[in-house]
């Protein structure tokens, strides 16, 4: 356990050294939130609510979805791909820790850093600029925290899966880019899932993506009834468990057929 904590700490300190890079990150996210804020305002026009969300809730949704993305987002799929390509993974595999576990911890270290130096100041900044309603109940905040942790795990698991495919595809830069676009769309970052046509919602029910952004954002904006919250959290948890299976299976196969492409 100690060595994994050390991993989190190291990644955190590494990020801290380059913290100035993140100030522009906050600005970029704020610019994106701004674009969607004006767009949604125009979409709402005279309407007081769409699909049960008021325009104020929608602004909050957009803001929290982007700032939560700063926490759960990481590039470990690309890191795994590079480590496989330049052969570093062979050294990593003989070290006394679980390679995938170690990658997850690095992602967590990065996430914790961004949570404190990106998400929180960013959220304060956008709350000053745009009309946003923060949850009043302390319970909502803690449920949101749990849900956000699940969303980090699901996103990281999907990243691990994408990363492992490098063992079989050798060059998967395209797949990684495609995965990012698909997650932005299907996770509810760009559009709440409830806005999609019914048939699309039906399909997305059977996919893990809405656990990444839609569920925590809906909790934060009070868009769920209390029964729905329980269901949503349960769904997130089930996905966390289910996704372990393909990761372990792929990992076993991958270890057997590792080909180092140089280094």
């Amino acid at each position, binding site marked *: 356990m100690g060595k994994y904590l050390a991993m989190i700490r190291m990644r955190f300190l590494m990020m801290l050294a380059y913290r100035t890079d993140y100030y522009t990150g906050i600005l970029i996210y704020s*610019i*994106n939130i701004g674009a969607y804020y*004006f767009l949604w305002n125009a979409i709402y*026009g005279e309407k007081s609510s*769409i699909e049960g969300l008021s325009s104020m809730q929608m602004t909050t949704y957009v803001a929290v979805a982007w700032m939560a993305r700063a926490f759960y987002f990481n590039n470990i799929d690309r890191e795994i791909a590079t480590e496989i390509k330049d052969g570093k993974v062979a050294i990593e595999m003989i070290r006394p820790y679980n390679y995938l576990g170690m990658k997850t911890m690095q992602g967590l270290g990065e996430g914790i850093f961004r949570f404190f130096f990106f998400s929180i100041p960013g959220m304060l900044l956008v709350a000053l600029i745009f009309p946003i309603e923060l949850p009043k109940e302390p319970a909502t905040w803690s449920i949101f925290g749990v849900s956000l942790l699940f969303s980090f795990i699901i996103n990281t698991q999907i990243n691990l899966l994408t990363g492992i495919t490098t063992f079989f595809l050798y060059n998967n830069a*395209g797949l990684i880019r495609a995965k990012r676009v698909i997650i932005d769309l299907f996770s509810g970052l760009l559009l709440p899932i409830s*806005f999609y046509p019914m048939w699309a919602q039906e399909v997305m029910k059977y996919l893990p993506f809405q656990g990444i952004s839609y569920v925590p954002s809906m909790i934060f904006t009070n868009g769920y009834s209390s029964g729905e919250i329980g269901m949503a959290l349960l769904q997130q948890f089930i996905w966390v468990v289910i996704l372990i299976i393909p990761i372990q299976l792929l990992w076993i196969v991958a270890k057997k057929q590792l080909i180092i492409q140089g280094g």
Partner: protein
Amino acid sequence: MFYVSMFFQYVSQYMKTRLQYRADFFMEILSDLLNQVVNLVFILVVFGHTQFLSGWSREEIIFIYGFFLIPFALFSAFFNIWDFNDRYIVKGEMDRILTRPIHSLFQVILERIELESLFGVVTGLIIIVYSGVSLNLELAWYDPILFILFSIGGALAYAAIFIAIASIGFWSDAKTSIMPMMYNIGNYGRYPVDIYNKVIRFVLTWVLPFAFVGVYPASYFLRKEEWYAYAFATPVVGVAFFMVSVVIWNQGVKRYRGAGN
């Protein structure tokens, strides 16, 4: 003439290297395509809940997006200089550029071309034709000419912003992470400017002229007469901003001292 032949030599060289890795080449095009599909899905889903966006219909918004893709594709193919500072100034590559007998900016652009982005022109045209037909837009004989002029004007406006920002590198060594920010601001130009407040509208028109890439020129073809003045200004604005940015670039080159190692 020399510049034209240089251009084609670089292009043929580029094609050779790119076609060496065909799978990668097609993946790039595919992932651009996927991005465009996502943006279209967004528009379609949103219009499942509203009839008009500040008075613009669904097909009109789609038309604007389709038009935006064309100057944007031209820009991404030929002005891929977002990492100019890291690639040329920090690494000292600019020294090499300056010893050669063609204009430095022209050469940097040639070295960084990315022709697969031109595929966006095809997607843009398909979207425009689809939405144009469903809107029953009528074409005058001179419209294709205006279309080309507006597209080039928009691409130049876009390029001007990025050239001006790349030139900052000549004055300050600080890592410029302004570039990715510009790509995000550029997205504001994909939607009608009347949805924004006055300040943003002013910025998008006169400071960072992103509105001239999408909504202004497109409004001419959509026959929105209240925007005609801006639409017809597109080529002028594009050329004017571009000339200013080249002047800034030239001033910067004079100040360039090399990174030294």
